[in-house]
């Protein structure tokens, strides 16, 4: 559907803001370079204040980068105003024009492009069908539910066939159930339309479900980028590991490498970790363990004390103390397994392939 899928490239982009209280300048985004492939779905993920929205707004043209250059489909676009850029944005608050009905909202951008009436009508109807709002075109925006408003916002952006579609936390105003169904919908529509999409969110499960590539940002810089699997299984640092899902961290020292695996000494006990290429022998390291990969048993590497044991339905949730360190364990499919109670002592263990060193 899109005229031309366009890629986005950011080269050493920085944005400086002034803190309104202290009047000190700070980097909202600092020296960020990234490449978004044409036709891919890329998510900027991070906690609030990490610079993800600022980055998106710089791509849209609402903010001007203080350093660096932004390219859209190979063309530098720094000096272009938002209305001249081949981007379309879906806003967090939907930002529908409240004095127009659905049809006019979707047709607004087309009218500005001076298309003839018939073309506009066809395009608007087609797109409304795509987002599942057939027959609603005469309604006013305040007669729609949140999810429907979101679909209008999406239709309004899609109908312009932009080189890149921008999403600014579009699902955060919806309730949890709708959020899940809408994100499947967004992914379906994006793939059907074959459009490049940049999506900002602070919700990691949304990012995992939607993206070809996730870019994790922290304090204005990119912490890691990669496919959802890469990010989940091989987080580069504690921030990423902790932000994407839950993670346990065990501090130790790399003793040696054995046949591709690393042998890490943690408090005198040696454990085997499969993914340990980047850590040199003798260096300090942290072993990252996902809660569902951590096993609680009568035998294992380390003795722990159970402080929380709750039945969550799909899994048994444990909080255990290893010395002063709290670890989280998800024991899936707990039916028929041994359940430890609060105050019990047990051992934790893990498969070498389920852990990695950072």
């Amino acid at each position: 559907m899109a005229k031309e899928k366009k890629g986005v490239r950011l080269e050493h982009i920085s944005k400086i803001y002034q803190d309104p209280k202290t009047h000190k300048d700070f980097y909202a985004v600092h020296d960020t370079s990234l490449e978004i492939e044409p036709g891919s779905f890329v998510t900027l993920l991070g906690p609030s204040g990490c610079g993800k929205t600022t980055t998106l707004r710089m791509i849209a043209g609402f903010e001007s980068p203080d350093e660096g250059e932004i390219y859209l489909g190979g063309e530098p676009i720094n000096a272009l105003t938002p209305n001249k850029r081949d981007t379309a944005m879906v806003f967090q608050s939907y930002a529908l024009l409240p004095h127009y009905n659905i049809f006019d909202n979707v047709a607004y951008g087309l009218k500005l492009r001076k298309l003839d009436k018939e073309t506009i009508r066809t395009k608007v109807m087609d797109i409304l069908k795509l987002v599942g709002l057939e027959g609603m075109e005469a309604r006013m925006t305040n007669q729609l539910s949140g999810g429907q408003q979101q679909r209008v916002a999406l239709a309004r952006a899609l109908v312009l066939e932009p080189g890149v579609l921008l999403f600014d936390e579009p699902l955060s105003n919806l309730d949890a159930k709708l959020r899940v169904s809408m994100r499947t919908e967004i992914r379906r529509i994006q793939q059907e339309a074959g459009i490049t999409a940049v999506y900002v969110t602070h919700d990691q499960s949304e990012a995992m479900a939607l993206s070809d590539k996730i870019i994790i940002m922290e304090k204005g810089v990119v912490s890691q980028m990669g496919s959802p699997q890469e990010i989940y299984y091989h987080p580069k640092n504690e921030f990423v590991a902790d932000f994407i899902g839950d993670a346990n961290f065990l501090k130790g020292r790399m003793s040696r490498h054995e046949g591709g695996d690393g042998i890490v000494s943690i408090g005198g006990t040696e454990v085997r970790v499969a993914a340990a290429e980047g850590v040199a022998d003798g260096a300090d390291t942290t072993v990252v363990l996902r809660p569902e990969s951590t096993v609680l048993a009568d035998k294992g590497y380390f003795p722990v004390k159970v402080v929380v044991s709750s039945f969550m339905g799909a899994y048994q949730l444990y909080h255990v103390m290893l010395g002063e360190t709290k670890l989280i364990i998800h024991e899936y499919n707990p039916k028929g397994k041994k359940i430890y109670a609060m105050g019990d002592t047990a051992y934790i263990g893990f498969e070498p392939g389920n852990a990695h060193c950072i």
Partner: protein
Amino acid sequence: MATAQGAALDRKKLMADPIMVTTIVVLITFLTLFILYPLAILLIDSLYGDGNGLSLSVFKRVLAMPTFTRAIGNTLKIGFVVGILSTLIGLLFAYVEVYVKMNRFAGGLFKLVSMLPVVSPPFVLSLSMIMLFGRSGLITRFLLGIYDNNVYGYWGIVIVQTLTFFPVCYMMLKGLLKNIDPSLEEAARDMGASRWKVFTDVTFPLMLPGLGNAFLVTFIESIADFANPMIIGGSYDTLATTIYLQITGAMDKVGAAAMAVVLLCITLAMFAVQKFYLESKTAATLTGKASRARMLIEDKSVTIPLTILCSLGALFVIVMYICVPIGALFPTWGYKFTPLTFKWFGQVFSKYKGLKAFRDSFVLSLIASPITALLSMIISYLVVKRKFKAKGFIEAVSMLAMAVPGTVLGVGYIRGFSGGLFRTGFLQGLYGTGAILIIVFVVRSLPTGTRSGISALRQIDKSIEESAYDMGADSFKVFMTVTLPLIKDSFLSGLVTAFVRSITAISAIILLVTPSYLLITVQINEFAEKGAFSIACAFATILILITYGSVLLMNLVMKFFGTSRKIKEDE
């Protein structure tokens, strides 16, 4: 850090938008030329006016005039007393409205009282004060038998100004009280405080900055007021009237300029306190919206006396206003009351060129109001929604205009434009024309319109305009297709407010009007001065009818065409 690139890009993006750039340039020129320049010329005049280079000799000269020093004292004294009285009465009315269960009749009276001063010419109350309580006053002479009651002077001004300005305080404080979360007071009640204790310990401290605000606003209005002191002041001169007389009587324009600078300094100082100190404090104490409706006081021993007291007060004010049209119907005020006659209305048109006066006032105001409304919406849009370098200037100057008394502006225009710009003859053609009157109307109504536009625009999510911009609309398109339709109500009411303010304006206009233009307010002032009250009342009545009619018309238009209301309703 390198913020230069971002700034340069922002500038580049702005420049890519010629309509926007032109608008900004035109606005800056307008504000500079018609607000800043006349004030600057006053300062220059008073520092260089005696021809000996830079000196304070003009100030020394006017300060040596006992009439002037007395006027300063008088003005401050009246401002202070009127400020306090208006705030207190306004507080009483606001408290009763927000806290006490009232019957619908009293509620209607309150609404009427809050609206009357808005649609009335400024000196209506002075007229009725004289006609009710003066030497041949209806109440003093015929009801009480007092034959030589003197309403002219200090008390006359205080009473009339208080009655004129307290509704403004009432409206301000009503908004404030409504924003106090009732649960705060309920918590105090729950902990054992009496109603009175709740008021003194919770409600009153919370609204203290707001009270200060109301006081200062009234204070500024009072010392800037020209019409009332002119009519009812008698020999008790205030700064505004002294400056006027210095020009029209003593023909001392340089002296008047120095006096105007003194008056301006007083209002600016008050305005600065109000703007930068009190407004922020009010916002800080009253952040939250009321979480739910307040339990109204239903205790009869409280509601009945308060309702009666306020209703009587309101009735009194309403009677004062009604007195004007009735006065125009009596054959001779003070001597002969029957049969009622339309002869004064007839004379307005047959003898006193009423038609021309109404046409001139009407046409000039009609031209001024759309300009004002549009300008104030554009300013609000720029201030709230856009960022660019000169924004601070535009915001500051349009707010500054709020603190400039009409008399000061009038003197500034005389000094600034009668000989052309900086007396070079450039733009001299403007002086004495209808255009300069229109400009004065615009400048005088701009701050009110801008303020209401700003508060309307702050309610609109910024991303709505951004989305239109993102879809390909330029600034002009965004403003015309999104912003303006969304603040249609504010625009319409700005239109009518500007019209009403213009057609009832007098303080600046009276200094600038030439014989080729007859303005109603100036006519009313003249007849009132001469003691021809019946004619003045007839003029004023027609004026009130016009203004009230246009307000009604606006309400009708808003009811049928106001889209923003439809949008708000369903939320």
